[in-house]
């Protein structure tokens, strides 16, 4: 059983919960009182992650930190379909790595703005918001062309990858940080598509998909 050091309102922890839910992996969550308890900065938690951040997983003794690293590990180890992290397809794998790096950017901008508004973190708010808009503009344009090519996701694979998954929480929670998605219609459609993936699960702040009868 995988243990996840988790805070429910953390976008990065959500990335890990989301992939485990989609892959149907059971896990045991150890709640970390990130705020207002600051447990991730405690001496006790330093034994688990000296960098003092979450998420961290412990898979039967194998301990790994950093959400994107955990996504790579879980998908490579547990995704039987091989589509979420397609190690056998060099091109899609390269694109996945590229967009994972891009997702570091959305985490450092859009999610930083969210921490500023929600929890009062000290960031240059104008700079992080401007940075988020710049990245969202690039992503919206990219996704618009993907749609014209008949593709739904950020890579050229017909299936979503962990790159989509890593981007989704930063994008879907951006308005909590005052980064509106009004000007990014293709990005809004992509978040709708993402929420329809089998095994999708929400976190507080992200709206559930519709349960109406499907079209047709």
């Amino acid at each position, binding site marked *: 059983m995988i243990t996840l050091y988790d805070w429910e309102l953390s976008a990065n922890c959500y990335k890990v919960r989301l992939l485990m839910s989609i892959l149907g992996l059971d896990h045991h969550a150890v709640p970390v009182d990130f705020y207002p308890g600051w447990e991730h900065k405690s001496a006790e938690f330093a034994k688990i992650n000296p960098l003092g951040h979450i998420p961290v997983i412990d898979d039967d003794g194998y301990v790994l930190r950093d959400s994107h690293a955990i996504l790579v590990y879980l998908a490579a180890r547990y995704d039987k379909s091989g589509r979420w992290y397609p190690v056998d397809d060099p091109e899609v794998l390269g694109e996945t790595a590229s967009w994972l790096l891009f997702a570091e950017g959305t985490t450092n901008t859009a999610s930083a703005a969210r921490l500023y508004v929600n929890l009062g973190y000290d960031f240059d708010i104008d700079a992080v918001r401007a940075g988020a808009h710049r990245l969202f503009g690039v992503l919206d344009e990219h996704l618009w*062309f993907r749609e014209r090519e008949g593709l739904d996701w950020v890579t050229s694979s017909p299936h979503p990858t962990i790159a989509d998954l890593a981007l989704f929480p930063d994008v879907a929670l951006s308005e909590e940080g005052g980064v509106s998605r009004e000007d990014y219609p293709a990005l809004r459609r992509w978040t709708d598509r993402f929420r329809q993936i089998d095994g999708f699960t929400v976190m507080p702040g992200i709206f559930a998909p519709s349960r109406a009868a499907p079209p047709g």
Partner: protein
Amino acid sequence: MSGEAERRWHPVASQYDVVPRHVFWGRLLGRELAVWRADDGYVNVWENRCLHRGVRLSVGTNDGRELVCRYHGWRYASRTAGCTYIPAHPADAPARTICNRTFPALERYGLVWSGEEPDGEPPVLDALEPGGAFALRGVTVRAPAEMVVDALSRHRFSPTDLIGAAADGNGPGPGGPVTVTGQDRYHVVLRAESADGGSASTAVFFAQPADADRTVVRAVLAGRPAPDSRIPVWRHHNTALTQLRDAVEAEARRRPPPEPMVAAIEEVPIHLSEVPEPAPKGRRAGLRVQVARKWPVAEDVAGFELVSIAGQLPTFQPGAHIDVHLPNGLVRQYSLTNGPGELDRYRIGVKLEPDGGGGSRSLHENVRVGDVLAVSEPRNNFPLRRDAVRTVLVAGGIGITPLLAMAQALRHQGLDFELHVFARSEDHIAFAELIDGLGESVTRHIGLSPSETGAALESVLAGPGPHEHVYVCGPGPMLDAARRIAAAGGRTDDTVHFEYFANPTDIDDSTTFTVELARSALSLEVPAGATIMEVLRANGVEVSSSCETGACGTCRVAVLDGEPVHNDVYLNDTEKQQGGEMMVCVSRAGGDRLVLDI
């Protein structure tokens, strides 16, 4: 607000934005819009604001027929934006007039057009063919529309050498001259020649004034490029327009920011600003409809599709009926069989009653396709609760009609239900193809004797689970049996709902009594042979009504004092015993006095 900008049509979205089950978030002249396409293709342009608590509808759900608000689950029908269901009050039919603000919507040139108060039609441009236009990617520019249009008049968009040529991976060459062949405040027409001057293409760039400092450029190319060259054309457009955007935004940042546009939010009508009262008065035939289709839907049952002559048909809820005013002067009630969001027509089923008063005969024999009928707005005295864990619908004969509307709503919403259809034969099942579409939720009970019907009802209504509701519509004897069986099985009468076709009660109208009207401070004598309703109307007191036979529930009035004698079949036994309400069309006083809350 009625400046030139407000009276024009503007593009507000592209065809790529209104995909199924999605709500596009748009903006025009400072007003936010929720733009969404229903499954039947209809595109809705609504103010992006639920009038209940102001929540953006763009965060709601497009379920294909209705838009559901994220905050409290209020449902709004495609086309009218009328509220069809308020989950906090599942037993109530919402006032038909709870309606979000809508704006005109039209699709042309691959764009969705709307406006605040637009005159006439969206622009028709000689350069563009309605069906042949090719929409390019919309780009938002953070600058006022006039700056954007000015820049567009110098824009170099030269896709001509790409069109028709096989995509060879090369970018566009320098191309030939680009000239402005048309322009006004909100658009520029550009004609681009190929490098060798042998061919030309035309594109129109529309500037959508989203806000004072924000403009969406929506471009359309005349004619559709060959499939292979589409992506290169899109890319060329995007690259060129992005360059234009960056230059215009740099210029706009050097200027003082304009005042934002302030879109006025309309007040809600006064009657909606307070907790809603049950609404419309009298027996009105406010709508004129035309018979668009008449066809046999079962043995002795004719189906009618009624379309509006002018304007949009009003919102209805499952279980609702309309009064149909017939050429021979009679008024009859027919349930709407429509599914949710089907507001392009009303569909009813009319059973021929040879021994009836002539209403159904008139419809069967005299009314033809193309005829115009007067009908009332839909009224719902048989509302469907959607807070049941399981809903059981029981239809006898033509009693299928309101239950068909309910079943379609429940199925569409993904709620658990069963529909039991009792009929003399398969040929007597009306709207069989719609029933087939409901799949495994349907059980057919064909050709049963009265005692077999009773036994079937016993099993259908056996063992009430928690949070179950039952709806029954059919002939009187079947309803009486169902009522008895449900009660014997332990179902409380607030969980079993009936709709009668007619009221079989023998009414003793020989009594004489006084009605006092608490709110109007009137005291009126009701003589033998007259109904309370007749006396009220003779004295100028308006009362809503529909069937006027004690079956439909429209004329329900609260009783403040005195004991009514209930002659209706609308109220259930508990309600009758409580005596808090009565139907003034048929019910009378037990003593010599009643005090009514009107």
